């Protein structure tokens, strides 16, 4: 396999709430390789954004405690000073945010916002910066780049703005891109365009990508490898084909069964009962997903499930998945497979 660009080891991100620290990312380890798209998927509140912001060093350190390691280019990002980190952010690490309506400064022109990272990371004349910016705009599929260059964010549609946000992330040729729900706020057709664009760009620049999403459709279209997150923990990691063809963790299977386009029309969808617990209320002993599969009898759960490899490259945080069944599923019912092919 290609070289790793980012190695997260036992990362724990805790927030201070009324004097106590609660972990939103709880002992997560994950590696991203060159030219690899690793998707992180889970319901909202599972700690996906908290993870992304930890890598980028964007948490407010007064209220956030970061433990573990985020190794990038043989240094631990978590122990770098702000000024050292600023030499890496925007250069080697690029970030794409969820909402293109709010991710751009309303008072600066598009051109200025794309050039800004170059101010800090590249020694370029202003003419060279402009040239590069226009080129970037073309690369993200904007045709009238000369005009867009001097326009303001509010003059562009959501899809156009998201292209600009991508151009900013790519401005200094990053080796790792972190995209936090890059298509969630977009219309279906625009989502498809942005997905195709990101795939195409990745083909060109061969960077690693961490793609955060709650949409398994986006995962299926884009990811090479998938980490499923629940309540701050990774509960399953697998290659994308393996995950969709052979999902093992009950949470992964529940997610797949709740997607309308994945189920037979008009058939009842699987409902994951309850909600993702808040970080204060989360019970951190035993299996965190147990309260949401109430029909599974107590003795069938594992006491403290750990992530272990069940097949090469396929990790699951549960050993009792073999016995797991949905309440509506008859034992041995072959028609009830998780993916409809």
């Amino acid at each position, binding site marked *: 396999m290609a070289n790793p660009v980012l190695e997260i080891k036992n990362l724990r991100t805790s927030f201070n709430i009324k004097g106590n620290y609660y972990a939103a990312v709880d002992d997560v380890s994950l590696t991203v390789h060159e030219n690899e798209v690793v998707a992180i998927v889970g319901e909202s509140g599972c700690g996906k954004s908290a993870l992304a912001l930890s890598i980028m060093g964007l948490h407010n350190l007064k209220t956030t405690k970061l433990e573990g390691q985020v190794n990038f280019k043989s240094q631990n990002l978590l122990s770098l000073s702000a000024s050292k980190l600023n030499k890496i952010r925007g250069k080697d690490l690029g970030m794409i945010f969820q909402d293109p309506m709010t991710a751009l400064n309303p008072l600066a022109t598009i051109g200025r916002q794309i050039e800004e990272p170059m101010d800090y990371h590249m020694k370029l004349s202003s003419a060279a910066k402009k040239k590069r910016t226009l080129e970037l705009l073309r690369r993200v599929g904007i045709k009238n780049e000369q005009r867009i260059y001097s326009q303001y964010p509010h003059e562009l549609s959501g899809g156009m703005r998201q292209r600009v946000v991508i151009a900013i992330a790519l401005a200094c040729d990053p080796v790792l891109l972190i995209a936090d729900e890059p298509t969630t706020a977009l219309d279906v057709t625009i989502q498809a365009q942005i997905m195709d664009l990101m*795939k195409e760009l990745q083909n060109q620049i061969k960077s690693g990508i961490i793609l955060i999403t709650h949409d398994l459709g986006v995962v299926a279209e884009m990811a090479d490898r998938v980490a499923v997150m629940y309540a701050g923990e990774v509960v399953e990691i697998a290659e994308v084909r393996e995950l969709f063809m052979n999902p093992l963790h009950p949470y992964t299977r529940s997610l797949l069964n709740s997607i309308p386009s994945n189920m037979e029309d008009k058939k009842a969808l699987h409902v994951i009962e309850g909600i993702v617990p808040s970080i204060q209320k989360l019970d951190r002993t035993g299996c965190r997903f147990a309260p949401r599969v109430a029909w599974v009898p107590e003795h069938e759960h594992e006491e403290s499930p750990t992530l272990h490899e069940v097949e090469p490259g396929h990790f699951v945080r549960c050993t009792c998945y073999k016995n797991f069944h949905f309440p509506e599923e008859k034992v041995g019912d072959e028609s009830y497979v998780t993916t409809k092919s």
Partner: protein
Amino acid sequence: MSLLKVNDMKIHFPIRGGFFRTVVDHIKAVDGISFELEPGETYGLVGESGCGKTTTGRGIIGLNTITGGEVLFEGTDLAKQSRSERRKHVKDIQMIFQDPYSSLNSRKNVLNIIAEPLRNFERMSPGEELKRVQALVDRVGLNPESIYKYPHQFSGGQRQRIGIARALMLNPKLIIADEPVSALDVSVQAQVLNFMQEIQKEFNLTYLFISHDLGVIKHLCDRIGIMYKGRFVEEGTAADVYNNPQHLYTKRLIAAIPEMNPEKRFEKMHLRQAINEEYRTDYDSYFDKDGRMFDLKSVSETHSVAVQ
């Protein structure tokens, strides 16, 4: 007889401009659409944001003034009726809104929120009212004590259930659901969709289901109308539209649904590229010289397409 028949409905908003802010043009948010809803069916209205779906829904229940055309509900034209005449029918048509966070009045408790529509129509003793509300709250799967709580004390999915309970209070025949699950997580979305299907049978409801999510529409709807720039592009049964799309725009929408099988992702990407290519070459045969869609023409008994 169909329950609802929308006939060539138009809703135009004035654009003001020039020195004296006079009306210089119109936004043709809805520009001549026709469709029918049979009792008990679920009709899906789908299209990208800004294509006029919400305006259509609001036009039917009278929240937007109709510029032209007819809205026949059980045979009477709502568009021609005065406000007071309309009230009788408005009781039969209820709307559920997209955003479960802002569509409920945050200063009222659940009891008042749910009972409010009824109070406009019927006088009831507080005891009777409480009973009705409790029964509904129970039906939508909320705790009985939740009627004295306020919206912020509920999760997104629960709020959407409160919205549904409010809509059900008047025993409507038609429910217009405007993107009811778009703001919800998949798991919560599944909960609300299942629930809507259950109550449809139980209360014999007809749905006009508005969404931009083709997966949700396909899962739920019997018939589907695809909207683009205030007009219908294609209409047909779910099978017609998904398995045999005729209009280029429909094809593009369907190709945009993410492929759930990772093996087929490149196929899907190439399909999308091919459609984009077709857009460039064949645009003229799908849109007239003003870029407006043609009128619908039937291609089969259930299926019609906007082509020349």
